[in-house]
């Protein structure tokens, strides 16, 4: 509703016809007012002329009779002239003597012989003669002093019916309003349909400009022939852009795969290193057992060393297995699934002497894709390790609240570039980064987060970057089903 009140938010196809209608109404009102004003002026001027001619005629006819105070002759003259003047419709005409009494009137019943001239007339023409129009009641009044040899011998009053004039005014006004309203409506509707037709290519463009499954569809060639050349060129350029974007998307996916493999390589080398480290000690322990196996204490110590070494190797192998091959049940996440990640990043932290603040508060199994969550967390941790300076602090917090899993990874690096952070921040799927640019790892992470229906937020804390990922967790019922 509020949006409808904001004119700026109106669609162009509505805004332009409304503007046209507004202009038309303004112009039509102005023209109508001017036309009507001139018409009224002319009408009143003509009426005054005709009425004056009418009084001239009546005066000439009654003057000789007035001097004789001949009632019948005056009446006869008034009666005969009543309908003989085109354009004048007298409701009454009366002749009054200088003493203010009626000598004769065209309507004797209303103005009897020797009656006093009505107040209404005397008030309107107290001193001067003239012509008065009262449009409110549709009447006009005339008065003229009749003189014989320069001496006033009486006054002639006439009441005119001007309802026809007023009706004509109303008809002209109605016609103007009707014609202008029709024209305004026609122009507005015409403008609406013409604009709608003209802007149709934009709606086509709008339909195709959205990403669908990470791809932008090109506009079919069949539309090309239906639109004007300007929009045809626009469609061509859009299609070129869409094709380039799709190609980049394919390439980015390919690169992401490569990045994944590269990361796996790094992980594999790290794992080999972690496995290799205890192996030397373990071989020494075996040598010790072979040499001094009869000594129970030495044997026991060596065997304990071997157990710890093998345990360390087992942890690393299990973490890799769970992360990349999936657990027995991928729709459950338990606390240990996240703790295992420590083994996968210990090579990165160890090599650069990074400090890891590990806070895993997930104390219960959660109904969420554990493999994907581990991938997300691992990618964020590896990214933090890569960004952190030597001996830097990396903070990892995992918690469950409000039916959501919260994962926070913070580092003390130089800060995540904005364009790369945008992959995580955006609610909708961003196109893949250019092959030559960085951020493929985080783009992959953002795809995983969206797949799980979650969101991410990137904060800059002065030193380093903090990424907070929120992932929705299904209800306990789902957990039971999964179990």
């Amino acid at each position, binding site marked *: 509703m509020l949006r409808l009140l904001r004119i700026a938010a109106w669609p162009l196809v509505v805004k332009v016809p409304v503007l046209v209608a507004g202009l038309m109404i303004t112009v039509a009102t102005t023209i109508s007012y001017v036309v009507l004003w001139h018409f009224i002026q002319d009408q009143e001027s003509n009426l005054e002329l005709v009425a004056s001619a009418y009084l001239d005629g009546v005066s000439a006819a009654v003057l000789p009779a007035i001097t004789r105070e*001949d009632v*019948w002759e005056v009446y*006869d003259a008034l*009666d005969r002239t009543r309908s003989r003047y085109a354009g004048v419709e007298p409701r009454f005409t009366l002749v009054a003597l200088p003493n203010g009494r009626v000598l*004769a009137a065209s309507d*004797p*019943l209303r103005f009897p*012989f020797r009656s006093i001239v009505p107040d209404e007339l005397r008030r309107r023409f107290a001193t001067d003669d003239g012509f008065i129009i009262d449009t409110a009641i549709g009447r006009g009044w005339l008065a003229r002093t009749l003189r014989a040899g320069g001496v006033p011998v009486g006054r002639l009053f006439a009441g005119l019916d001007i309802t026809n004039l007023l009706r004509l005014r109303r008809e002209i006004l109605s016609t103007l309003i009707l014609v202008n309203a029709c024209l305004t409506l026609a122009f507005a509707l015409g403008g609406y349909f013409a604009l709608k037709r003209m802007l149709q290519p934009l709606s086509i463009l709008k339909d195709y400009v959205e990403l669908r499954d990470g791809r932008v569809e090109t506009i079919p060639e069949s539309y090309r022939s239906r639109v004007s050349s300007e929009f045809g060129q626009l469609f061509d350029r859009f299609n070129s852009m869409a094709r380039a974007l799709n190609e980049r998307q394919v390439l980015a996916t390919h690169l992401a795969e490569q990045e994944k493999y590269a990361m796996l390589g790094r992980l594999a080398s790290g794992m080999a290193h972690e496995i290799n480290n205890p192996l030397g000690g373990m071989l020494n322990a075996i040598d010790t057992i072979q040499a001094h196996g009869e000594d129970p204490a030495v044997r026991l110590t060596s065997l304990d060393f071997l157990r710890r070494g093998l345990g360390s190797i087992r942890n690393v192998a299990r973490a890799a297995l769970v992360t990349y091959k999936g657990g027995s049940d991928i729709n459950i996440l338990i606390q240990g699934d996240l703790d295992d990640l420590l083994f996968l990043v210990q090579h990165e932290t160890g090599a650069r002497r990074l400090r890891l603040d590990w806070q895993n508060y997930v104390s219960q199994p959660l109904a969420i894709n554990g493999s994907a969550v581990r991938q997300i967390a691992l990618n964020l941790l590896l990214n933090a390790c890569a960004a952190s300076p030597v001996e830097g602090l990396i903070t990892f917090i995992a918690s469950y609240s409000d039916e959501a899993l919260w994962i926070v990874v913070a580092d003390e690096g130089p800060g995540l570039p904005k364009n790369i952070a945008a992959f995580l921040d955006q609610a909708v799927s961003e196109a893949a980064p250019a092959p030559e640019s960085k951020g493929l790892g985080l783009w992959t992470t953002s795809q995983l987060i969206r797949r799980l229906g979650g969101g991410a937020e990137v904060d800059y804390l002065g030193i380093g970057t903090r990424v907070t990922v929120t992932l929705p967790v299904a209800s306990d019922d789902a957990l039971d089903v999964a179990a």
Partner: protein
Amino acid sequence: MLCGHEQRHIFGFSRRTILCSFAGLVGTWPVPTNGKAELSLGLTPVFLDNDMKLLLLLQRYLSQQLDRPVRLVRQRTYRETLVTLLAGQLDATWISDFLYVKHQDRLALLAVPLYRHQPFSQAFVIVNKASKASTFDDIRGTLHAFSDPDSASGYLITRWLLALRRESPSEFFRSFFFTYGHRNVIRAVANGLAESGSVEGYVWEIMKEREPELIDKTRIVFRSERLGLPPIVALDTTCDLPAIQALTAALLDMISDRLGREILSLLAFDGFTTASATLYESTVKKWQMVKAQA
């Protein structure tokens, strides 16, 4: 005086010749055509003189019958007509019965119209239909419209009624005026200009058929006894002239001519007849009474 059929001469010249000569001096006598002098007939508002068709037909009929040009002269009042006749500027005229009575010693009756086959009519006193008056006495204090001071039905009868009451118009009526036409009296009363009026009954009755919307606005409060209809007269000195004789004959024979019957139809008359002065005895008596009261 009744018009005889013998030609009268003065000093060897006919009176008509003398009158023609006199009229020629003042430059108003018509120029004779086809060897015969034009005959002029005066008309007054006694009848429906506003009908131009009637005047044209009457002029055509008389011209044909008299075989000479005929000029119809319309005057505003009876008196103007009579003065013109007495001045010799008219050959004959249609005047009111009252005026005939007053000047019958110098006038000769040529013909009298027949209305409903009789040479009589009545005088009516009328009021506006909205008036509450039902008798003549009820119109006391009203604004009254007379037709003509020389009209019996349009003035004399009302004056006689007032004489019976020993009153004058100024005493009886609030005010009064003359319209110089019976039709005008009816218009004045119907439209409310006057509250009562004195009118020729014949005119009121034929207007009832022809202008009912006007007559419907009036009501009769008094009908007089039968009075002789207004006659067509000539000077008694000229009534024996051939032209006047021919005029009389044309009037009396109007009923036997197609054009004449059309004229009579327009006038709502059945024809014309000869009459004697006794036809107007009743009018004479009323005039004498009015004169005595005055």
